[in-house]
């Protein structure tokens, strides 16, 4: 599903964020991406979603070299990837329902079908009764679950989450972790960058450890 071959990433400022990264992730797995702050976790996820391009090496997603994708081809890749950000990136000018609707609107779903899917996604994360609520009126845990609903509403085969529980209390964090597990159970490939390995311990099928941009042995 995902394969990194001798991947390097150096940002324009000259900082080497990733060096000599090699791994592969199987379809339907739940992989934890560990490492200290600044280790290169976000950078690695960005390479998968073609938000950044590798300086050297190959990033393959479903057999496709995403580092070499043309600008016009990137949207099609992203529609097959659900992204959950640490800062959620919700749009605060529209309610919960409209936030989850956005990926479907972008993909041009027929309104009736889109409505149905948004309902299902909100139901899945337990926010159906908050559909008409503006994000600002949601708690931190609810906002993160809303972001997850938006990430999965297009039924992507790959779900990338960047420290999705960093700002959540224990209870909310457990709930979010369980959600990722449920998606993995129905065949979605899940990659989660986190400090909190213990939280996902029961669900993780694989681990990648980063330290200062390099893979740590024994992980």
């Amino acid at each position, binding site marked *: 599903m995902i394969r990194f071959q001798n991947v390097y990433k150096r940002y324009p400022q000259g900082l080497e964020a990733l060096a000599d990264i090699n791994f592969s992730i199987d379809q339907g797995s739940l992989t934890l991406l560990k490492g200290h702050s600044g280790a290169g976790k976000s950078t690695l996820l960005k390479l998968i979603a073609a938000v950044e391009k590798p300086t050297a090496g190959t990033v393959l997603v479903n057999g496709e070299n995403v580092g070499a994708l043309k600008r016009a081809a990137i949207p099609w890749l992203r529609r097959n990837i659900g992204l959950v950000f640490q800062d959620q990136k919700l*749009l605060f000018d529209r309610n919960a329902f409209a936030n989850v609707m956005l990926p479907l609107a972008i993909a*041009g779903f027929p309104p009736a079908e889109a409505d149905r899917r948004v309902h299902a996604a909100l139901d899945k994360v337990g926010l159906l009764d908050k559909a008409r609520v503006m994000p600002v009126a949601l708690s931190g845990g609810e906002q993160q679950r809303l972001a997850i609903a938006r990430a999965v509403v297009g039924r992507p085969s790959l779900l990338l989450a960047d420290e999705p529980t960093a700002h959540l209390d224990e209870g909310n964090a457990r709930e979010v972790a369980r959600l990722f597990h449920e998606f993995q159970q129905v065949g979605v490939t899940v990659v989660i960058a986190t400090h909190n390995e213990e939280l996902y311990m029961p669900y993780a099928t694989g681990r990648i450890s980063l330290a200062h941009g390099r893979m740590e042995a024994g992980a």
Partner: protein
Amino acid sequence: MNRWLIQQRAAFALALQRLTSTPVTSLLAALSIGVALSLPAAGQLLLASLQQLGQGSAATPQLSVFMALDADDKAGDKVAAQLKSHPGIAEVQFVSRTATQKRLREAGLAQVIDSLPKNPFPDTFIVNPRDTSPEALESLRSELAGLPRVEHVQLDSAWAKRLAVLLNLGRTLVWLLAALLAIGLVALIFNTIGLQVLTKREEIEVSRLLGATDTYIGRPFYYFGALQGFLGGLVACAIVYAGFALLQERVAELAELYRMGFSLRQMRAGEMLAVLGLASALGWLGAALSVRQHLRGH
């Protein structure tokens, strides 16, 4: 309904929503576009009305060279020779005084003609000039008037010719004005959309991460520009229509007074559609240029 249509409709709805969410700004923009567009539209319409005035006159101007009544044939021959060899003259036609008298007698004026003591008509040359520009015509006229025994040179349809020249000038001015204001409109929309892109920066960034194409992101802005232009076009049509409706009666009075076959023509449906279409297209263009400029590298 296919996806393309769904997306067009959604983008249009979004543009409409953005437009109505800031009603005062949108209205002021529509007003400034409308006032600007009304100027060339009114000018064009005025020219179309004025054109009626020039119609019916000879298309190509001619000069009538009248000899003095007591000029003899020898003087006439001399003038004829000079006219024929003149480089500025394409064709000369001689109408003798007896021919004129005969034509008028045949036209039913026999009694009047016969009652006159002598033939009142001069020998006449009808001259077709090569250069029909107003300056050339005027200089030829005064030159021919200076020939010996020539009494008078009349520039036929001089007035119509002058009108045609003025109309040409007017048309050029209207086009120039229209072009300048079109550029102004494009610039205005460009700026409006540029500001909008700034305020929608976050939405645009998130949309990109969720798989939005450049086309998807640009589309609501294009529709916004076109809608803004369309509204401006509506305002322009309303201004011109109301203005001409007010003026029509006054102009009719004036025309009556001067016995001129002239009336202000009101805007036709097709012309309004043209104004609306053009304004929308310019709005779209301004938006497209702006989106290209402001989304570069995102």
